[in-house]
Structure formats: C-alpha cells, structure tokens
C-alpha cells in the first residue's frame, strides 16, 4: 500500500493540480479517503477503478462541484479548496457532454469565453480555431440535438479547451459511445490533447482506455489510492492483488515468502527472488505460462486442462497445475484445441511473476481464478 503516491505532499514541486490528503465524507460513508496526487504540466493522468471507488468524486473536487471534507485542492499552486467552480481554471467534458440545448455549437463554445470577458473578435476567432481542431468547422450553426454522439463529444471537448484551462477534466468521456466509435474517439482525443499539450485528468472504469491513453494511472478502490504508476508499472508490477486483478487477466496463487526471499505456494510452486517474507500471493499472468515445447527455459510441469475457451486466433485455457488454477493464452494449430481433462506440459516464466504481500489484503477469495 505504501507507494509513491505521496509524492509532492508539500507542494515543493511545480504541479498544475495538486491534491493534498483530500477526503470527502457523506455522513457516515466515506467517498474519498486521504487522496494525495500531483500532476505535472502536460501530464495525462487517469483515475481508474470500479464504480463507487471515489474517482468521479475526486474529479468533481478538482472542478469544484464537491467540497472536500478535509484536505487541500491546489490548481496552479493556488489554494482553490474553497473557491466556487467558476473561479477555477479547469475545463470539463461531462459524461453526458452537457451541451446547452438552446445554443448552437458555436454559442456553446463561445459561452466560456464570454464569461472570461473575451471580446467578440477574439471569441469568434477562437471558436473557429477550436472547430478546426476537432475537425467540425461545418457544424458551427447546428444545435446539439442535431449532432451524433461522437460529434457531441468533440464539441464538448472544444468547448472545454477553448478557455485554455490549466487542466482538462474528462468524466468517463467514452461511456456514451458504442464500442467501435469508442476506440476511434479515444485515439482522436489522445491526439488532440497531445496537440494542445494540456494537463489532463480523466476518469474511467475501463482498463484498456487507461492503459492506452495515460502517462500515469491512479488505481482507486473504496475511496483510497491503491497504486500510482505508469501503465507499464501498473500492469507489470502491481503492488496489490486488487490492482493485479483489476487490470488484465491473472491468476492469484496463495502462499508465503520464506526467509530466503523465495515465494512458495501450498502446491510447491516456487518464485525465486528477494521478496518480503510473510504471507504473500503470486500474480501469474497468462503470458507467464507457456507450452513446454516453445516456452523459455524453465521447469517443465504437468498440467491438466480444466476449461478451454476459443477466442478466434488464441484460446484461453484454464489449467490445473498441481492443485493451482492458472490461465494461459495460446495459439493452437487448427483442430488441436485442448479439451477439458486433457494433460499438457507447461513451463512457467518465474522471472516475470510478481509476488505481493497478502497480509494487508482483506480479500478472501484469492484462490479463485480472477476476472
């Protein structure tokens, strides 16, 4: 649990957005507990977690729609904790886009600029600029109801960015789009954000979105930060079973780390290393498991197929390896897919397997194959 998420606790570094031990309680229930986070200029940070983990509340505290019960919100090195939303230098894209239905696209984009007291000439110039940025200059005079979902999203983005906010806030920006459009819009959005080089905080429950878009990911659970790190860090070196299970496929093997620092499971699965002694779990990703014939060097083990799911191309196989359930993604030649009950020889790439201490875990269902 103790990780690098305490960085910048005292504001000594130059952060665009900085949360210092921010908490939000609703009566007895705690939505956000002691969240600290600093965002560097130009950084794209993602708040990732299951629904109800406090990620949206955290975002809304940055925007000013929710006041923290305790802690400090700083934007551009200024204490904004008690400032109303309209005095904060943020631009937000809402989950429902929240385009004003009684204003045209151009009027929507100009709205923030009017409130910032820009003159008309500058406003019109900026609106045209933003429409070009999102590649919809021909829609300026349309009403929001006449736009498709993807167009609405781009206009919402243009509206938020027009003010040149210090930080762009995105609240589940893709959840209202269908699956195909979602992937395309993700790439487009990423390109636009990179192009204008704006510091961005976005909220999602979709791990793929988080992994592909962010510089850093903040994984949240039950109001707390579980881990902060680059997408690579989060996937390759999860610091808790929760993070491992939430991101990507994995199997969790229960066991303990002995005095020499080697992890040993109940079924004598060994992961050598310099792990912290005590009860621990090994996180085995499907790509750590290979067929004995083509795998890297390692101990060959006998396994038995429990389940086999064909995904077109690869097959996901759930294996029983000496009493542990492990998962494997493998391409099998046509007509040679393993059937339940069939024996297979596998190797484990133990160098890549990560071991996390389980003493601080509250989960009890670790034996199960995750996700």
């Amino acid at each position: 649990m103790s990780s690098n998420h305490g960085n910048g606790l005292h504001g000594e570094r130059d952060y665009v957005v900085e949360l210092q031990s921010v908490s939000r309680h609703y009566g007895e229930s705690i939505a956000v507990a002691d969240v600290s986070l600093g965002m560097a200029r130009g950084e794209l940070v993602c708040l990732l977690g299951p629904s109800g983990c406090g990620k949206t509340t955290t975002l809304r505290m940055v925007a000013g729609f929710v006041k923290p019960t305790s802690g400090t919100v700083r934007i551009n090195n200024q204490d904004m904790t008690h400032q109303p939303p309209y005095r904060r230098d943020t631009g937000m894209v809402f989950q429902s886009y929240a385009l004003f239905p009684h204003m045209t696209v151009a009027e929507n984009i100009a709205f923030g600029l009017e409130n910032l007291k820009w003159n008309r000439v500058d406003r019109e110039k900026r609106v045209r600029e933003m429409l070009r940025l999102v590649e919809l200059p021909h829609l300026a005079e349309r009403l929001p109801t006449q736009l498709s979902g993807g167009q609405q999203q781009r206009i919402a983005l243009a509206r938020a960015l027009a003010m040149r906010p210090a930080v762009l806030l995105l609240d589940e920006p893709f959840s209202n789009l269908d699956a195909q459009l979602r992937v395309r819009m993700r790439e487009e959005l990423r390109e636009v954000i990179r192009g204008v080089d704006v510091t961005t905080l976005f909220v999602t429950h979709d791990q793929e979105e988080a992994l592909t878009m962010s510089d850093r990911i903040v994984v949240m659970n039950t109001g707390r930060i579980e881990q902060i790190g680059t997408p690579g860090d989060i996937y390759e070196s999860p610091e808790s079973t929760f993070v491992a299970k939430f991101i990507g496929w994995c199997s969790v093997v229960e066991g303990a780390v002995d005095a020499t620092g080697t992890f040993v499971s109940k079924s004598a699965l060994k992961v050598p290393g310099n792990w912290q002694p005590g009860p621990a779990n090994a996180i085995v990703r499907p790509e750590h498991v290979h067929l004995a014939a083509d795998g890297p060097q390692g101990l060959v083990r006998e396994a038995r197929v429990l389940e086999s799911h064909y995904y077109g191309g690869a097959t996901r196989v759930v294996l029983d390896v000496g009493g542990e359930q492990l998962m494997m993604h493998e391409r099998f030649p046509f007509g040679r897919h393993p059937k339940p009950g069939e024996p297979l020889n596998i190797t484990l790439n133990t160098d890549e397997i990560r071991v996390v201490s389980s003493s601080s875990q509250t989960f009890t269902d670790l034996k199960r194959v995750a996700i």
Partner: protein
Amino acid sequence: MRDDFSDNVMKMAGAVVRAVVYTMLALPAVLVIISSFTSGTSMNFPPPGFSLQWYQRAFESEPFMKALWTSTYVAVIVSFLALIIGFAAAFAINRFSFPGKGLLQGLAFSPLVVPAVVLGIGLLYLFAWMHLTQTMLPLLVGHLVLAIPYVVRTVLASLSLHNRVLEEAAMNLRATPFQVIRRITLPLILPGLLSAAIFAFVTSFGNVTVSVFLTYGGNVTLPVQLFTYVDASYDPLVAAVSSIMIFVTLAVILTIEHLIGAERLA
C-alpha cells in the same frame, strides 16, 4: 375459454365506459357552443336555425363586456404576480435545503385543500374589516392565493426535470450563479414558466366559487356575472358569453399543450 370470455367482457365494458366518459366530459361545452348560434329566443333543443345575433347582443351588453374586461384585467395581473411569487418559492424549495421544507411545501399547496366557500367568506370578512371591499384588491388577492399552488407545482416540475449538469457545465465555463440562472436555467425552463403563468390565468379567469364572495364592490368578473344571470333566468345570450369563455379556455389549453405537452398539465 373462461379466460377469453372474461377478457372480452372487460374489453367491451372498458370501451363503453370510455365512450360514455369522453362524451360526458365534452358534451356540456359542445352544447353551449351549438346553442349560442341559435336563431331562436329560447334555449329549446334542437335550435331552430343558425344566427350570430346572440354574439352581437353579447358584445353590445354592457354588464357582460365590463365583466369580461374585469376578468381579463384581474387574470393578467394575477398570472404575472403568481409567476414571480411562485417561481421564487419553487426555486427555493428545489435548490435550498432548510428545516421545515415539507411544511412549507404543504403551505404552498394548502389553497387546494381549503373549501372555496371557507376561503371566500374568510376573505370577505377580512376585507370588510379592512374596509377594502369596494376595491379590486379582494379579487386580486383571492385569485393570487388560488393560483399559487398551480404555479409552484408547474415550476417545481420543470425544475426537477431540468438537467442540473448543464448548470455545472456553465459554472465550469466560468459563469457566475447569477449568469447561470439567466443564461441556462431560465431559458431552459421557459416553457414551464409560461405554462405556469397561463395556469394562473385560467384559474383566475374561470373562478366563480371564491369570486362570488369578493365582488361586493361592483367589480364583477365574467363567471360571477354569468352565475347571477343564470341564477335568475337563462337565454341564448348566456350561451354566447359562455362560448366566448370556452374559446378563450380552449385556446389557452392548446397553447400549454404546445408548450409542455398535455400530459404534464395534470
């Protein structure tokens, strides 16, 4: 087989009941309009022929035209005031949390619970005591009290249907609370506000049960004029005046229907 039989009986009974209900609801108004075009001098049915003479007589009748003017005048002022007072209250109820909110909402709707006779004589007594029965004030105040629940209810409904995220978006775009109300909230609930004002108008324009106690001073409204006239005798002149009221009311209903949809009138 038994199921089919009971289903069919229910279907048929339902169709008959509905036909009777809609006919019954529309019949009085339809007949008033038909009789107003009679060429005869009595209310006998069916009318002997078609003429517009009773409309002409209605527009020439001084008491009725004076009453029509009084009714319109009162209704316009009442709908204007009721909208302002009712909107302020509905906005506070919708947006602020304060102790005794339920009680306050109850108060706003209480004019619906007090029988018209009770309110009417109560106001008459009060204004007699204040020596103000000779003015227009009793009518205005009485109708204002009656209109408040309708306005509060309509505005509350619009406010609760109104998407609050749009206001957050406006605030994020640096609009101050006052600008948010002026540029986002008000334009978006405008249909609801107009309907509320129109509701207040019809409530005032058609009221007779309270007005009848408040027209002592000679400021007689059209429904009260009709009531005293019909109480004594009735002839096609009443039908013509009543038809004018029906046309005004119908125009108003269609306007609201156009603004917010008829279902939400309820």
